[in-house]
């Protein structure tokens, strides 16, 4: 399975807190594809658990790596754009 990788910026003043985490999980579950999120250089976590995302303790101003396992690049780009939107706060 090919995966597309992107970076997103956490702009939300509270960081990656419960609300954006839930929004991302809802989006990922609805899309039916595997999405991994995390800091560059660290283990990425599966974005199907809001608690795992919150436990990363991502703060405002951090840059995140998003890996999307799908053959459809346009779909991946669409998903990541929404993830970025959720992280604007």
């Amino acid at each position: 399975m090919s995966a597309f990788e992107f970076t997103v910026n956490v702009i939300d003043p509270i960081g990656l807190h419960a609300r954006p985490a839930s929004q991302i999980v809802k989006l990922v579950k609805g899309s039916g594809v595997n999405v991994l999120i995390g800091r560059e250089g660290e283990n990425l976590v599966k974005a199907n658990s809001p608690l795992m995302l919150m436990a990363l303790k991502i703060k405002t101003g951090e840059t995140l790596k998003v890996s999307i396992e799908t053959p459809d690049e346009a779909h991946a780009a669409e998903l990541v754009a929404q993830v970025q939107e959720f992280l604007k706060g």
Partner: protein
Amino acid sequence: MSSVLSGMGVGLNAVVAEVFQVAPAAALPAWAKSSAGADAESSVLKTAIAAVAADLARLAASADETTAEIFEALTFLLEDESLFDMATAHMDEGWAAGAAYGMAVNEFAEMLAGDAAFEERIADLQDLSKRVQASIAGIHVGLDLPKSGAYVIVGEDFSPADTAQFTPAVVGVITVKGGPTSHTAIICRSRSIPAVVSVAGADEIAAGTSVLVDPVGDRVVVGGSLADATKPLEFANTGRDPLVEVRANIGSLEDAEAAAKTGAVGVGLFRTELLYLNESSQPSVERQRDLYASILAAAPAGPITVRTIDAGSDKPVPFLNMPEEENPALGVRGYRLIQDHRSFIEDQLKGLEAARVATGREIWVMAPMIATVQEASEFAALARSIGSFKVGIMVETPSIAALVPDLEGIVDFVSVGTNDLSQYLFAADRMNPSLGALLNPWQPGLIRTLERIASQAKAAGIYSSVCGESASDPAFAVLLAGLGFSSVSASRSQVDAVRAALSAVDESQAAALAKSVLAAKSAEETKSAAVAALSAL
């Protein structure tokens, strides 16, 4: 026959109704291993999670939109896949379903701990954990509030899941625990439900007893009538200027603009942290100058007191590296950041000086979390080397409160932050719901400390003010003037109420009020002494 229980009032209206005691739920069974096997336990857990989810959905269906969103968020946590996976690992070790879920929740709570943004989520998770375990044990946890009639509900404290179940029959609320900033207090304030929190002994009032909830009087009167309710103080319009200057607390451009529409003379506390929370890297001096200049230009006429950055590991600024700490309130915060971030504090002062020059405003600067006279003189020298400021410090630590005479000739002013001073003076965490009563500003221990700060500052020729939350209470502001403070600074919504109170008294009346308050022996007595003096005007 009536008896009075004291607490802390929320709201201005009183109500009389019958007490409805919310029964504490039965104790959950102790965690145990199971002989049924992991598969059987797993299906028990699935059933319980589904049952709790169905309860939440049922509550959401009868709730307003905001509350329904809270339930949806709770359901998301409840059904979290990783949480279930962790619980499965414990069931594989032989634990029963309830124990396995409880352990998994504790592990996530541990992972999320130490971050202020997640404190409420941890409370939510633990609440869900109780619900799931109760469902497995067949214990009922709903509040079962009456849907019609009018009741004052009494309980230990209410969680978001609890307050979301409040029916229209809830006309008053009493909690045994919790402080003025507890979830219960915030919800009651926003829904205008009269409440008194932190009322010891309220759980012993018999169900069906009629009580008066008297938030202005900070009390519950068993058998009381509305005629007994304490009236909010009203002050005659004398047309005089307030006894001491009333400044405004601000933290943003919007605050500055709103404060300028009040009668505030200048700003007594400009919290600068907010300006940096959205910056991913340290802003340049020029950018800080522009940010400050727009706010300084909009602020109410008069001197503007700017507090240098007051961040810590519980209130982190993204571009300053702040390692997590065991006790953030006692850690590297406020002026202590200068150890590792001197250039940031210097740049902040440079940006402010440039904004001062650009706007022509009078700027006072002060540093938070000063504990020694050496720190005060170091900050004063630094600030004076950078700009034409009046220089002062916050008085928040008991150590500097004991050293005010030694600040003579070192600083131009001191400003007391009563919220933090209370926290450190009483060794009572501001975040702990069980300690609300110790953080009541009417505590004699705080008031006598304030008296000493004001009189010693006056003797040392140092201008003194109070910018903590307490100065937003009109009666407390009169007390502060009577104790000898040179000005008070209130939240912008309270500026005009505080001005009205300080315009209604003269110096000798305020001094007499302070004298009677200083003679009182408890938080209830100090407040009633002040209210009595003001009512007699």
